């Protein structure tokens, strides 16, 4: 695929847009006409060309702009990137994994040359060309995790596995859906998942924890999560709630199509080789309701899914206020016919 990078913003004038190709490759999260909360883990294997699943680490047209937005967030708030000191091996594991996957999938954009520990990394979209020694922190301008995450789309958590649990011990989180790395750092799996309604009662987390602790090298897993965001803002962090919380009240019948965005998170789970830690890339994909409406099947399904979401969940995902407006927006697209199986656009 020939990638044409767009220049756009995720703040102030919100010039973020999806091209028609970006819409078609959107990882639409609803596989059926009604909604059920489930963990839905599957193997993270390469998907069909032209989808967001084509490569295990996806790079798309928003790459340069997202990296620019990340740099802005980090400048304002350096605590968005943190790593506890015992995570250094995991940091190098992460750098290696992301460099290898990006350079194999996009050889025109990224090149990694290696001679034992001597590495040469070229990132053409961002104009980076660095030589460094693998394992030697002093040869990179940042710690290895920060270095590579400033060049990789999505948020990342590096999770240590010990004492029969998982621990959020490092990460770079600048485009999160309302959670805070600074708050969760060092917490165990059960602690950082405490707020999700219903999930604890369903025993979902116990099963998810068991599953994650058994994720094996060379065999990553993935799941989709989603929420709704007013305006294409990447950084909807609790720290910045004052900036975006009030935007929820700006949605009207007239502007909802352009203003309200479905925000899908593609979470993948990778075992890191040297540290035995886990890497969780959390990749966000934004799409406006207007853009969804260009795909008839998705628009029809949105109408049905939004109607069947239980109230506490709509509340948790932060869109109960605009839910009815969104249902009304999609109502004209619901033709009453059964939709085809799966989440593909046709």
């Amino acid at each position, binding site marked *: 695929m020939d990638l044409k990078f767009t220049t756009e913003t995720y703040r102030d004038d919100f010039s973020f847009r999806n091209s028609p190709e970006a819409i078609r490759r959107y990882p639409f999260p609803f596989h059926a006409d009604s909604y059920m909360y489930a963990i839905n883990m599957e193997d993270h294997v390469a998907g069909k060309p032209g989808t967001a699943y084509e490569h295990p680490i996806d790079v798309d047209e928003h790459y340069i702009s997202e990296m620019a937005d990340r740099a802005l967030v980090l400048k304002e708030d350096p605590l968005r990137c943190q790593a506890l000191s*015992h995570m250094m091996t995991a940091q190098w594991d992460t750098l290696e994994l992301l460099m290898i996957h990006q350079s194999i999938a996009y050889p025109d954009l990224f090149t990694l040359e290696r001679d034992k520990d001597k590495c040469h990394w070229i990132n053409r979209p961002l104009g980076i060309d660095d030589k460094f020694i693998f394992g030697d922190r002093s040869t990179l301008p940042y710690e290895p995790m920060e270095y590579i995450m400033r060049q990789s789309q999505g948020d990342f958590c590096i999770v240590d596995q010990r004492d029969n649990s998982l621990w959020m011990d490092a990460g770079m989180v600048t485009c999160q859906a309302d959670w805070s790395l600074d708050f969760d750092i060092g917490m165990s799996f059960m602690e950082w998942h405490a707020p999700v309604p219903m999930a604890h009662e369903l025993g979902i987390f116990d099963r998810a924890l068991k599953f994650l602790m058994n994720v094996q090298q060379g065999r990553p897993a993935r799941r989709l999560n989603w929420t709704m965001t007013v305006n294409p803002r990447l950084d909807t962090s609790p720290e910045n709630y004052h900036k975006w919380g009030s935007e929820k009240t700006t949605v009207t019948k007239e502007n909802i199509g352009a203003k309200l965005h479905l925000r899908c998170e593609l979470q993948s789970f990778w075992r890191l080789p040297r540290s*035995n830690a886990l890497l969780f890339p959390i990749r966000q994909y934004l799409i406006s309701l207007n853009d969804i409406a260009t795909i008839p099947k998705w628009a029809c399904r949105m109408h049905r899914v939004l109607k069947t979401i239980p109230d506490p969940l709509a509340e948790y995902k932060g869109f109960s206020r605009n839910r009815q407006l969104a249902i009304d927006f999609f109502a004209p697209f619901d033709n009453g016919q059964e939709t085809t199986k799966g989440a593909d656009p046709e």
Partner: protein
Amino acid sequence: MTVHTEMSVTVTDIELVADAIKQFTLERVDGQPMPAFAPGAHIVVSMMDAGRLRRNPYSLMSSPRDPWNFRISVLRVERSRGGSVFMHDVIAVGDTLTISQPVNLFPVDILARRNLFIAGGVGITPFIPMMEVLNEKGGVFELYYSIRSRSHGAFWSEMSALYPNRVKIAVGAEGYRFDYHELLINQPLGTHLYVCGPKLMLEHIFNIARDLGWAQENLHFELFLAPPSGSPFTAKLASSGKEIVVAEHQSLLESVEEAGVDAPFLCRAGACGQCETRVLASDGEIIHNDIFLTDEERKSGTKIMPCVSRFVGVGLTIEL
């Protein structure tokens, strides 16, 4: 769907390192570097042994710093159901084997302030890379290694030379045994205990640790348990609609795989829980050889670990 993450390797060196232990050096056929791994990891070696597919797990004992080969050690178990005898008698330098990606079910706790390693026999292997990495990082460890005789034990002289004050050897033939109770009672609070060896030794040491009130999080083990042999039996696989016969020297899991049915596994030694399978019907007795299920689950007769457990009776139907 199974994700194929296996790779072909060539045996580039075989060395007899003790009376019945051979060390194999493996390199990738495609010339690529080996996947990186953390100490404690094992690989699963697949082999065609007299027309029968065997998959045996072996701990990685090579240096995690060396990306060009893997080393494993195999104890020849006479009268065993195969695998180890095949590796010893048939496999020669230049042969090709298929191995899995490293799987780590025995990692070192990086925050542990003190690590106590206890090895029995060929159970020494995972501790070799563990000690190498801890030694580099300035971590605190001690190894207690029991062997039957000096000629039966592998790597004891190398390890004693590398870490002179931190390695203790007990040679059974010389009438020396460790007093594990004494050893454990004298450990500082917060010590992490790692045991790798035969099932009886493991149970013995863990019973002591539990009696002394050690926290579950501080106890780590790797079990060497070849799937026990037993009388042949028949099993129905409900989801795939097949009926299989498990031979005397074959595990239920191996028989399932031979029938072309995909079943989950990680340790193949009855310890990790990954292969847990529901029993839908049975008229007979399940011989639980695993150490994963609770006593209650065992009694209920509704679960089986196909990697090591067997069945005596008729009409075993499992959900696979």
